[in-house]
């Protein structure tokens, strides 16, 4: 215990806490007047009976639910074997090999040259106009 703790103890003891005869009598009288509360005693036989009753009710309810579920169970859904699925949808590569040559896959060149040339001419004209505008602005500025 260091000096600080000693000082705390010493200073606490400096507080006068003398119990007057009047206060002692007051405490004694109040304790005689008051009744001690006893914890509520549990009735063991009643508790065990309740436990049995609730357990049996629970078991009966569970059995009833199981029976009801089995009674109303729908017909099982037929499950197709995995082999059947592969037979219906063949492998994609095999399928492509099978269909190769059955359909004619010819292509022709699309004739869009005329429209594109017009567009290109218009763009060049716009570009030239913009360039002239910029040059004019530069001349104004300097």
């Amino acid at each position, binding site marked *: 215990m260091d000096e*600080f*703790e000693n*000082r*705390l*103890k010493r*200073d*606490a003891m*400096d*507080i*006068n*806490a*003398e*119990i007057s005869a009047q*206060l*002692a009598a*007051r*405490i*004694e009288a*109040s*304790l005689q007047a*008051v*009744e*001690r*509360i*006893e*914890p509520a005693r549990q009735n063991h036989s009643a508790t065990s009976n309740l436990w049995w009753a609730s357990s049996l009710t629970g078991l009966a309810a569970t059995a009833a639910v199981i029976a009801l579920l089995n009674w109303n169970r729908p017909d099982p859904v037929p499950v197709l074997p995995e082999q059947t699925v592969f037979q219906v949808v063949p492998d994609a590569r095999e399928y492509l090999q099978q269909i190769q040559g059955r359909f004619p896959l010819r292509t022709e060149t699309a004739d869009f040259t005329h429209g594109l040339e017009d567009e290109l001419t218009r763009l060049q004209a716009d570009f030239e106009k913009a360039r002239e505008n910029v040059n004019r602005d530069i001349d104004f500025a300097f």
Partner: protein
Amino acid sequence: MVTDEQLVAAALQGSAAAFNEIVERYQERLLRFLLTRSASRADAEDAIQDTFISAYRYLYSFDPRWRFSTWLYRIALRNVARQPGHNALETEVEPVDAEDPLQICLAVSDHENLWLTAKRLLSDDAYSAMWLRYVEDMSVREVARALNKSVSWAKVTLLRGRRRLKLKMSESASVTARSESYG
């Protein structure tokens, strides 16, 4: 020597003498603490009376895994908190004044009582924690239980309280030394 817990067991069996022995053991210690926490001596006396009544009535609920003093101080703190003047005291900026029962009950000394300083510097809970730890010699766990707080709260609060009081103590000591050197 019969322990508190043995006395409680005897009191639970119906021995009035055993509970009277408990009262004898604790009344002065408890009143000393309550004087520092109540607004007046009358309030402190009311609180101690209520504490013993509650302890006697609800003795069956005492958990013997803990020290009896922890349980008793917990009841005392609850009774103090219920007192009407308690909250008013909390909101005051300077709670210590001439009417303070603690100041009245103090013996004349050349230095300020450290508990008076603590009352001025610390919060109510921190003050109680310091008292229970250093005057009642409770462990940190017991302090936490008595105040219904966590153990980490008790640790931090005690550390801070100790630091603040020590700082104040050293400040006062340096002021005294300076005034002595000036004559």
